[in-house]
């Protein structure tokens, strides 16, 4: 059969102009030093990236992002399954309902979370009314993770829902007819079939979670620098575009390599890439 790849060309051209060229601009800034004596090639920005101080920032950010992604998956998968099992007319409406909160401005939403979480905030008031000790989670890592889970959960639910929504029902019924328990059906059939959606969801949650900075600033009380904050600082405070670019290129390489390794270990990998 003749391949009809041409329909991908508009996208490829777009990516070449608006993604690849900017990446080269960033790469350029990361390997030059601009001073009064002109422009010189340098590796000093990358050398700084490998200082333990900054490597720790990387590790911490990736840790927090991983935890948030895992929680999103645990919360989101069952929700996606339930949504996919609803009948068609209800389903579309529910799926839009999942995403609508994210249309309200991010800053306004986060401020609202602060109203809920802070000392004498709504949540602690309720907790105290029941007679429990206050949680005091404002300005802790818990608050940061909560903020990330909240903001990225729909990005986990939607792709999983979309693959589950048309999973072949007859396959599942056949399995059940053959005496498989619901648990086995899920493990052997439903989950493997939904894996591409899960992978998409993880990508859409994990990648933005690594580089987020407003959540840790507002809900975490700015106690720790995350990689997103660090890069943001280089561009908007320190004006050290070289170091900022180097950090961002390093992050890019780190993530692309680890995703490459992940896809290598994926067993039934006919098509290449993650899919």
């Amino acid at each position: 059969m003749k391949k009809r790849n041409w329909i991908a060309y508009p996208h490829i051209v777009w990516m070449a102009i608006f993604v690849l060229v900017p990446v080269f601009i960033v790469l350029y800034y990361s390997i030059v030093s601009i001073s009064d004596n002109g422009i010189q090639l340098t590796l000093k920005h990358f050398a700084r990236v490998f200082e333990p101080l900054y490597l720790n920032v990387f590790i911490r950010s990736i840790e927090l992002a991983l935890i948030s992604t895992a929680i999103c998956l645990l919360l989101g998968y069952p929700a996606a399954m339930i949504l996919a099992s609803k009948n068609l007319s209800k389903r579309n409406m529910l799926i839009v309902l999942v995403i609508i909160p994210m249309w309200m401005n991010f800053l306004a939403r986060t401020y609202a979370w602060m109203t809920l979480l802070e000392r004498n905030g709504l949540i602690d008031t309720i907790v105290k009314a029941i007679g429990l000790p206050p949680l005091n989670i404002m300005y802790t890592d818990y608050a940061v993770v909560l903020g990330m889970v909240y903001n990225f959960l729909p990005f986990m639910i939607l792709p999983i829902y979309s693959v589950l929504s048309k999973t072949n029902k007859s396959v599942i019924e056949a399995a059940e007819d053959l005496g498989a328990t619901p648990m086995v059906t899920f493990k052997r059939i439903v989950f493997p079939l939904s894996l591409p959606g899960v992978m998409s969801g993880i990508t859409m949650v994990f990648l933005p979670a690594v580089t987020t900075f407003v959540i840790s600033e507002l809900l975490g009380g700015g106690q720790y620098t995350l990689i997103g904050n660090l890069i943001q600082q280089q561009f908007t405070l320190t004006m050290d575009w070289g170091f900022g670019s180097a950090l961002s290129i390093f992050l890019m390489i780190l993530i692309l390599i680890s995703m490459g390794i992940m896809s290598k270990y994926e067993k039934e990998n006919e098509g290449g890439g993650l899919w």
Partner: protein
Amino acid sequence: MKRFFSAVSLFLALLIIVFSAAITTGCGSNGRTIKVYNWGDYIDKSVIKSFEKQYGINVVYDEFANNEEMYAKIKAGALDYDVLVPSDYMIKRMTNEDMLYKINFDNIPNYKYIDDRFKNLGYDPKNEYSVPYMWGTVGIVYNSTMVKEPVNSWKILWNPKYKKQILMLDSQRDSIGITLKMLGYSLNTKDQKQLEEAKQKLIEQKPLVLAYVGDQVKDQMIGNQAAMAVVWSGDAIYMMRENKDLKYVIPKEGSNIWFDSMVIPKTSKHTADAELFINYMCDTQIAYKNADYIGYSTPQTEAKKLLPKELTSDKTAYPDEGDVKNSEVFEDLADSLPLYDKIWTEIKSK
């Protein structure tokens, strides 16, 4: 399926409408136009309207949220603004990099109303490039129901009695700056040893700090979330109006005194009209309107007289020279910025 295609055709129709709208508005500016770039919510909007009406000049008005982001856009040559309102140290940086025009003060007769205290300052020593728009200080705002002792020194921010009751600014320049002041150094220091000392102090303070905050500090203090916070005076005025228990102090060691001033960037193609605008902003009635709307302190002496007495006699908004005698204006740190950034990252990673 049909719905999808009708959506696509709707989109095409929309595209046409928008593009035609974009084109007509693009051509619509046949008269004189100036472009102004100011902080968010930092002007009484009616002032722009009245300027347009009086001079027949159209104003394109954009807003930014911090100096550095504004600088990045101007530096890239992305935009041809005529008037900017950066802060002191940023004006210094921009003059050093030859990004600003000298203002022709013959065209700014209203400059005579600007208080002489605010002329010839470090960031514009010969008064060539900038006209002050708003000014203020940095100090401690504290809740008098939670803090009973007198507050007059930065040292109180290191008092273990207020563990987890202290809010610091999530701003490297300000937080390191006040620590330097407490230690008796200049807040513009580039001396490694002094900065190292400040770093140790801030690391020592970290367990006492509830959070490093930005704009949300206002709500936090109004809502009695903390006992004290480092804030800008303009915000302090607003906070004290909302919560009567709050008090503002400029510590005796001295502090930072800041200015947001109007300048004309070299991207401007209409410098004469820009000067017209700057002069208009210094008009007594107009400066009064802006000061009244924003609530920050105006450097315009006549406009100050029109403001309510209880505001102008309040030392929070209008400290006299004695209150700020140890205070300094920020200078551009240039090459030392990465050092400050590294110190801040080290503090944050403890």
